[in-house]
C-alpha cells in the first residue's frame, strides 16, 4: 500500500468521507512531476481529497504526521545522502530528525535556560525563520524531557516546554520591543495594538514550531498510526453535546449560525418545491398567444406555503441542560422558518420562556435570566416529567393546536415519579406531531429511572440526538 492510500485510509478513519474517485484524483495529481515541494503536495492533496472546509483542520494534523514537518531551511549537507527522488517515502522529513538529534547532542549542554530564552527572543524580534526553527528544536530537547514509550499525547510536553521558556513573558517582551521600533509620530493607541497583534502572531508561530517538533519526535518513538490515533479528535458534527468540553462547546456555538442559515434555506427551498401548484389557465393561454396559440409552456400557480408552528418543551435540569440550551438556540436561530415558536422550560415545575428569547440579545444572557427568573422548579428540583406535563396542560391549555408540532427535549429520567403518560396521549391527539429528542445513547434508554417506553407510543418518533449531525437531520425533516 503506498503512502497516499494509507493516508486516505487514515482520513476515512477520522470520519472524513473520501471516495475512491477522489483517491484516484489525488494519485493523478501527484503524477505530475511539477508537484515537487511539500506545500504543493499538501495543497494538491487538500484540493482533491477534502471537500469541506471544516475538515481542513483534521487534514492538516494528519498531513503533518504522514508527510513530516516542513524543512524550510535547505541544509545541503544532509540532503545529499537522502536521495530526494527515491520514492514517496522521501517526502517524509527523515532528515529533520537527524538534524535535531545532532543539535540536541551537541550544543544544548553548554547553554543555560536564560541564554536560550534570549536567543529565542532575538530570533523572534528579527523574524529569522531558520534560526527560530533550530531554536525550537533545541528548546524541545532541553525542556520537554520526552520519555520514550510513554503513551501520553504531545500536549503535556508542549506545556512543559512553553512553561520553561516562559512564553507569556517572552510575548510581552517582544511586544515592547516591537513597539519601540515603530514610528513614534503615529497614533499611540494604534501602535500599541498593532505591536501586540504582531507579537501574538510571532509567538503563535513559535508555539507551532515547538508543537511540530514534539510531534515529529513522538512519531519517531511510536510510529505514524499510533500517533494519528492519539491525535484523533471527533469532527465537530460528531461531538457528543452532553459530554462536550468547554472548547468543543464553544466551537459548537460558533457553528449554530452558519448551520441555521443552511437549514433555513433548505427548509424554505423544500417547502417551495414540495409540490407544484395547480395549472394557471388564464396565464397559460395568454402565454400561448405569442406562439400562435400553441400551448407550449404551461404556467402553474404558486403553491401555498405552510410553515409549522413549534411548541418546545425543554428539560433544563442539570443532566441535560447543555443539550436543551443548544437545541433551543438552534430552533430560535431558525425562527424565520416557523409561524411561531413557543418554548417552555421545566424541571419539575414548568414555565413559559418564549419572551426571554429576543433575537437581538446574547443567548447566554437569556439562559442566565431563565435560570434566575423563570419558575421552573416546583418541589425539589429533580426532573419530574409527569408533573411538568400536567402543569403544562393546566396552565396553557390553548397552547397546543392541530397545527402545532410539539418537541420535547429531555432524557425522560423522571426520578421514579408518576409519568402521567395519558397527558402526552392527549397532547398527541390535539397536535400535528409530537417528537421526543433524547440526548442519551439509545442503549441507556429504559434503564434505571428512564421511562422512554412509557411515552414512546404517543410520540410520532423518539430520536436519539447526541450530535450536531443528528440534530441537523432532525430539523431538516421538521414540518
Amino acid at each position, binding site marked *: 500500500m503506498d503512502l497516499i492510500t494509507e493516508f486516505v485510509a487514515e482520513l476515512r478513519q477520522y470520519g472524513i468521507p473520501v471516495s475512491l474517485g477522489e483517491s484516484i484524483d489525488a494519485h493523478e495529481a501527484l503524477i505530475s512531476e511539477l508537484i515537487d515541494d511539500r506545500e*504543493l503536495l499538501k*495543497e494538491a492533496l487538500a484540493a*482533491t481529497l477534502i*471537500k*469541506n472546509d471544516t475538515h481542513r483542520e483534521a487534514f492538516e494534523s494528519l498531513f503533518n504526521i504522514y508527510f513530516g514537518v516542513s524543512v524550510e531551511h535547505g541544509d545541503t549537507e544532509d540532503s545529499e545522502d537522502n536521495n530526494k527522488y527515491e520514492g514517496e517515502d522521501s517526502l517524509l522529513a527523515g532528515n529533520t530528525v537527524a538534524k535535531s538529534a545532532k543539535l540536541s547532542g551537541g550544543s544544548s549542554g553548554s547553554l543555560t535556560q536564560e541564554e536560550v530564552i534570549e536567543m529565542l527572543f532575538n530570533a523572534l524580534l528579527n523574524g529569522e525563520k531558520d534560526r527560530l526553527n533550530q531554536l525550537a528544536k533545541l528548546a524541545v530537547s532541553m525542556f520537554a524531557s520526552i520519555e520514550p514509550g510513554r503513551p501520553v499525547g504531545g500536549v503535556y510536553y508542549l506545556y512543559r516546554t512553553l512553561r520553561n521558556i516562559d512564553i507569556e513573558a517572552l510575548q510581552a517582551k517582544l511586544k515592547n520591543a516591537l513597539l519601540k521600533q515603530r514610528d513614534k509620530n503615529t497614533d499611540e493607541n*494604534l501602535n500599541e*495594538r*498593532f505591536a501586540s*497583534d504582531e507579537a501574538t502572531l510571532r509567538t503563535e508561530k513559535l508555539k507551532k514550531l515547538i508543537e511540530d517538533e514534539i510531534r515529529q519526535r513522538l512519531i519517531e518513538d511510536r510510529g505514524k498510526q499510533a500517533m494519528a490515533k492519539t491525535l484523533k479528535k471527533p469532527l465537530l458534527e460528531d461531538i457528543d453535546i452532553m459530554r462536550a468540553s468547554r472548547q468543543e462547546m464553544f466551537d459548537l456555538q460558533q457553528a449554530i449560525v452558519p448551520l441555521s442559515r*443552511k437549514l433555513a434555506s433548505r427548509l424554505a427551498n423544500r417547502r417551495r418545491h414540495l409540490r407544484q401548484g395547480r395549472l394557471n389557465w388564464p396565464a397559460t393561454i395568454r402565454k400561448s398567444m405569442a406562439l400562435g396559440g400553441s400551448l407550449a409552456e404551461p404556467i402553474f400557480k404558486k403553491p401555498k406555503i405552510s410553515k409549522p408552528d413549534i411548541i418546545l418543551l425543554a428539560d433544563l435540569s442539570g443532566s441535560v441542560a447543555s443539550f436543551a440550551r443548544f437545541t433551543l438556540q438552534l430552533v430560535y436561530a431558525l425562527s424565520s422558518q416557523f409561524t411561531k415558536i413557543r418554548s417552555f422550560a421545566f424541571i419539575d415545575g414548568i414555565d413559559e420562556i418564549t419572551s426571554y428569547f429576543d433575537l437581538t440579545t446574547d443567548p447566554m444572557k437569556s439562559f442566565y435570566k431563565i435560570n434566575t427568573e423563570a419558575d421552573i422548579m416546583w418541589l425539589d428540583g429533580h426532573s419530574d416529567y409527569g408533573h411538568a406535563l400536567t402543569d403544562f396542560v393546566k396552565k396553557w391549555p390553548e397552547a397546543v393546536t392541530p397545527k402545532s408540532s410539539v418537541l420535547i427535549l429531555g432524557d425522560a429520567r423522571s426520578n421514579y415519579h408518576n409519568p402521567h403518560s395519558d397527558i402526552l396521549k392527549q397532547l398527541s391527539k390535539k397536535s400535528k406531531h409530537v417528537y421526543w429528542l433524547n440526548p442519551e445513547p439509545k442503549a441507556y434508554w429504559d434503564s434505571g429511572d428512564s421511562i422512554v417506553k412509557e411515552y414512546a407510543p404517543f410520540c410520532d418518533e423518539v430520536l436519539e440526538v447526541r450530535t450536531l449531525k443528528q440534530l441537523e437531520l432532525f430539523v431538516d425533516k421538521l414540518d
Partner: protein
Amino acid sequence: METSFVFNSPDDVQASLEKVDYISSKTITTAVFLADRLKKPVLIEGPAGTGKTELAKSVAASTGSRLIRLQCYEGLDEAKALYEWNYKKQLLRIQAQNLVTDADNETWKQLEEDIFSEEFLLTRPLLEAIMSAEQTVLLIDEVDRIEIETEALLLEILSDFQVSIPELGTLQAKRMPLVFLTSNNSRELSEALKRRCLFLHIDYPDMIREKNIIKRRVPEIEAALLEQIGEFVRSIRQMDLKKKPSVSESIDWAKTLITLGIHTLDTEVANDTISVLLKYQSDIDTAIKELAVHS
C-alpha cells in the same frame, strides 16, 4: 477533442494571474493548476468578497480565453442553463411548409428532422461553453442558489464535458473548458457535485497578500498608509464580529482614505471611516469599543 494544457507549472499560474492584477496564494495556484492538468472543475468556497468570482475572471483574462458565465438563481432550469428549442422559429417553419404543400407523411418526417436541428437550438451558457471552438472559461456563479434537484443538470457537463439532447444526441466538448463554480455556502452541496470537483477554499488573505492586493488595486497609495491599513484590517478581523471585513471592503477603505487626503491613520480617523469596513451597527460598536481600550 484536443487535450492541451493552458499552464506549464503552478508558478506559471501565479505569474499569469499576477499579470492581470490577481494576487494568488499557493492554495489558489495549486487548485487552478490541477484543474488544468486533471481537467476537472474547481468548486470555490469562502466568505463573500474574497475574490472567488474574480479568480475565474482573471484566469480567463490571463489566458485570453472567452469567459462564459452562468449566474445561478432559484428556479434556474434546463431552458435557461443548457439549451432550449426555439419554438417560435419552429412554428414559423411548420407554417411555411403548410403554405407550400399539404403535409403528407413523407414531408412531415423530413420536416421533423429539420426543426430539431442545431439551427433551431438556442444555446444557453453550459451548451455554449461546450460548443465553443476557442478556449473558454466557464463560470457557474453562486451554485448554492439553485435547488438540489437542479444540480443534477450540471453533473453530466462537469464529469464528461458533454450535453445530451434527446432529439439530437450527445454533444461533446470541442475544447475542454476550464470550469469554476463558486458557492457562498448557504447550503450543503450534494456529494455527487462535490465529488466531481476539486475543492478550493479562499479565506481572508494574510497581511502580506492583502497589502499586495491593495497595492495593485490602488496604486497611488503611500507605503506607510498601506502598512497601517494592512495591520488595522488584520486587527479588526481578530475581533468577534458578525461579518468580518473582506478584501473588497479593505480596498474601498483604502480608496476612501486617499479621497479624504489622509496620510497616517489614527484612532479618530479609524472610528470615523470604519463604516466602510463593517456593515453591521453592532459590529461597528464592538470595534470602536475595542479600539478605545489599550491592549
